[in-house]
């Protein structure tokens, strides 16, 4: 970037913050989002802020733009931006800095760009506000910028609206608008979240090129793989504090703080591999699925085949992973297995007897044998009910009729999943995400099923909680000898719990086999793409093994 730089000399940091505090609200509703954070960012370097949701990353980043919000109070020992003391800034100073000195790539491009305006206008805005180019040249500059961030057909794209662009192009357009006025620093908030693996890689390349060209990059991410790929330095945040900070190699390979270690271990497949998941213990199959097909009628009568002829069997104690991208038909297949949807052709047999194609009346008494652990437990609980009543309903259908017995049994189940009697009277909203998923497991176990269908049971959870819930599922599966159908879009998660895996694409099974085999020698392109989406923490895993 050929921006004329005024102010600090090259080795002086562009951003120098000491002891930054950010508070929201007043009095009893006061929340301290950032406590005593210090960081420095120099030209051409990338500093990554890492932490789970709610750790204060975004509040910290926004306070660097003076945009922490109307209820926020920002205080600091030093807040130096481009060599100037930002603590003394008035609104005019901040406006001169925003976009011109520090550009923001906010989270989720779909909502971060004005949906009612074409992206060309959005990108031109910083140019015009800061009078970087005369008005009549703005359009040409927008085309240049779009070309620079790798958007094909920039002239047509400039006239498109955000909703007409794919995820990758949107993100590029957002980066282009942040770059327009040639700022020296770019703040990128989760720039690759929600993007497909291949698109993610290209966005990371683009950001990497920018730092090489001399832009300082403040990267905010919860994804350690992204951090490893881009950052020179990393700061780990938790509860508003920076708990560990240093060069990326040091922090990721030799973490000193316990929380950093927990984050690293929680990356699926990142920790030391455990004992191999159990294979089938044999016996007659519980579930036989033969050639099931399900079509849906789309809008305007178009037919869409969600599941196009899938067959498999599950024996007691067997764990089968079902992997595929969203829309590949996994959930439809699961709903047919659960008897919530009947297949158009083919059949499902439970315990050797017909399960699909029979009436609900016949199915109802047999439903206890298989239970679901849902993706989003919050929506799977009646919001008015307490934990005791939620699990109690399940016990009642399983024939536990005395109130006293139900309560005792509920406590036993809660303890089994790592909760206790103190959670009995809580409502779902008063539980954390991990606790909710544990309650969902407890409810699923209540009728003593022999088959558990887990539909993306951990994808809505933070990584550290993910690891705990996966642990619970695995221990229970082994000790209760449950058969399990485990659905996920994340191969690494499946690898933790399953012995066998099936990969689905467009309603068909494209590959299946023992999980290690599929992992090490994927035959299908789709499987390879899914594997690429797994965070590559090869270096760190190696280090972790050394540590042991």
């Amino acid at each position, binding site marked *: 970037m050929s921006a004329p730089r005024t102010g600090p000399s090259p080795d002086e940091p562009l951003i120098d913050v000491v002891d930054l505090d950010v508070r929201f609200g007043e009095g009893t509703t006061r929340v301290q989002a950032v406590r005593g954070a210090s960081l420095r960012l120099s030209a051409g370097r990338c500093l990554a802020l890492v932490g789970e949701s709610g750790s204060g990353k975004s509040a910290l980043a926004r306070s660097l733009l003076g945009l922490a919000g109307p209820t926020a109070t920002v205080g600091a020992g030093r807040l130096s931006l481009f060599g100037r003391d930002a603590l003394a800034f008035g609104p005019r100073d901040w406006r001169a800095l*925003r976009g011109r000195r520090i550009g923001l790539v906010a989270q989720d491009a779909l909502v971060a760009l004005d*949906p009612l305006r074409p992206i060309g206008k959005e990108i031109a*805005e*910083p140019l015009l506000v800061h009078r970087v180019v005369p008005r009549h040249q703005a359009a040409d500059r927008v085309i240049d910028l779009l070309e620079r961030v790798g958007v094909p057909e920039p002239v047509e794209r400039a006239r498109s609206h955000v909703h007409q*662009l794919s995820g990758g192009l949107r993100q590029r357009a957002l980066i282009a608008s942040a770059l327009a006025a040639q700022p020296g620093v770019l703040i990128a908030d989760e720039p690759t979240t929600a993007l497909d693996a291949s698109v993610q890689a290209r966005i990371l390349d683009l950001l990497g090129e920018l730092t090489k060209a001399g832009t300082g990059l403040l990267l905010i991410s919860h994804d350690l793989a992204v951090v490893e790929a881009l950052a020179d330095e990393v700061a780990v945040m938790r509860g508003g504090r920076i708990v560990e900070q240093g060069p990326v190699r040091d922090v990721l390979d030799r973490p000193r703080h316990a929380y950093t270690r927990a984050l690293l271990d929680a990356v699926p497949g990142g920790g030391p591999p455990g004992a191999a998941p159990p294979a089938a213990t044999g016996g007659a199959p519980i579930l036989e699925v033969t050639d099931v097909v399900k079509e849906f009628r789309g809008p305007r009568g178009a037919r869409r085949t969600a599941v196009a002829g899938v067959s498999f069997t599950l024996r007691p104690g067997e764990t089968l992973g079902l992997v595929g991208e969203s829309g590949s038909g996994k959930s439809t297949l699961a709903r047919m297995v659960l008897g919530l949807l009947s297949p158009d052709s083919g059949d499902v047999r439970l315990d050797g007897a017909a399960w699909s194609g029979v009436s609900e009346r016949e199915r109802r008494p047999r439903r206890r044998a298989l239970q679901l652990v849902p993706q989003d437990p919050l929506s799977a609980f009646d919001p008015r009910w307490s934990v005791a009543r939620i699990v109690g309903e399940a016990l009642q259908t399983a024939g536990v009729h005395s109130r006293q017995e139900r309560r005792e049994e509920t406590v036993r189940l809660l303890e089994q999943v790592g909760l206790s009697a103190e959670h009995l009277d809580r409502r779902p909203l008063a539980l954390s995400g991990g606790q909710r998923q544990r309650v969902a497991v407890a409810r699923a176990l209540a009728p003593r099923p022999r088959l558990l269908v887990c539909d993306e049971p951990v994808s809505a959870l933070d990584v550290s909680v993910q690891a705990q819930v996966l642990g619970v599922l695995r221990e229970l599966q082994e000790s209760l000898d449950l058969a399990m159908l485990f659905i996920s879009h994340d191969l690494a998660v499946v690898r933790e719990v399953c012995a066998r895996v099936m990969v689905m694409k467009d309603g068909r099974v494209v590959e299946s086999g023992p999980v290690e085999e599929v992992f090490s020698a994927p035959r299908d392109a789709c499987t390879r793409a899914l594997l690429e989406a797994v965070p590559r923490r090869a270096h760190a895993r190696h280090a972790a093994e050394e540590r042991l």
Partner: protein
Amino acid sequence: MRPVVRQVAVRLGGALLVVWGAASCAFLVLQLVPGDPVRAVVGANALVDAGQREEIRHHYGLDRPLPVQYVTYLGHLLTGDLGDSYQLQQPVSGVLAQQLRPTAELALYATLLAVLLAVVVTVATSGRARWPRRLSAVVELVVVSTPSFWLGIMLLTLFSFRLGWLPVSDSGDVRSLVLPVITLALPIAAVLTQVMREGLLDALRSPFVLTARARGLTEPAVRSRHALRHAALPALTLAGWFTGTLLSGAVVVENVFARSGIGRVTLQAVTSRDLPLVQGVVALSAVVFVAVGTVVELLCLAVDPRLRGATGVKAA
């Protein structure tokens, strides 16, 4: 071009369905009205013998079987023939056409005033300072809670009887329109302001406004270039409510101010059981509802590109 044709066809079909439904509903309701329609025609006190009664029944087609009456009614409706009024002894379509102008005038001015008021108040109260917003919220709440007939009576008392600035009833000049327009517009303006301000505050909280601010935009620029268009969207979706309120309001306001118009005719038709006239009013208001809905839908398309569907450029 085919999808466009299809869309237009679907819209038109939906509109016809609503009008047909409303007309059928009116027909059905009127069959349920107790008492002999002949009495509504000749008045309660008139003495008519059986022969005359039969003649009247025949004249209005009341002697035919119900399905035949229904089909004839729909057929006439298609040609714009709404039958003859029992009371006024002239075609309903003529009565409505004659009364449409004063009501349309009233509704048009009220709409303009309400929109103007709403936009001005929204913009004026969306600044950083909180007290204008609070004050305006209180005023809106009181106005929304004030029944329009009482508002009209009070305006009449103050400006016509006490101060004598404005005429008491319709005198034909523009001054007699002032109070009715204000009475009709104020409650609508209050609701529109509430919705628009809510929309504006929502828009100001959304991520794209953060992006806009992060580009160094001034607050007025953020509002005028980004937020205000978003604030208009929820207000536009109120179209159905808006039409209904205007027509309901017209019934009340025209009676308070003794103005002629559709609203006045509606009440007369109901009190005197002039069934063909009631049917005509129902059909007319369904047509107006559908027409306003279509216009607003087009406005929405103009404001929000997301509703326009796929364009030539395919998303990569």
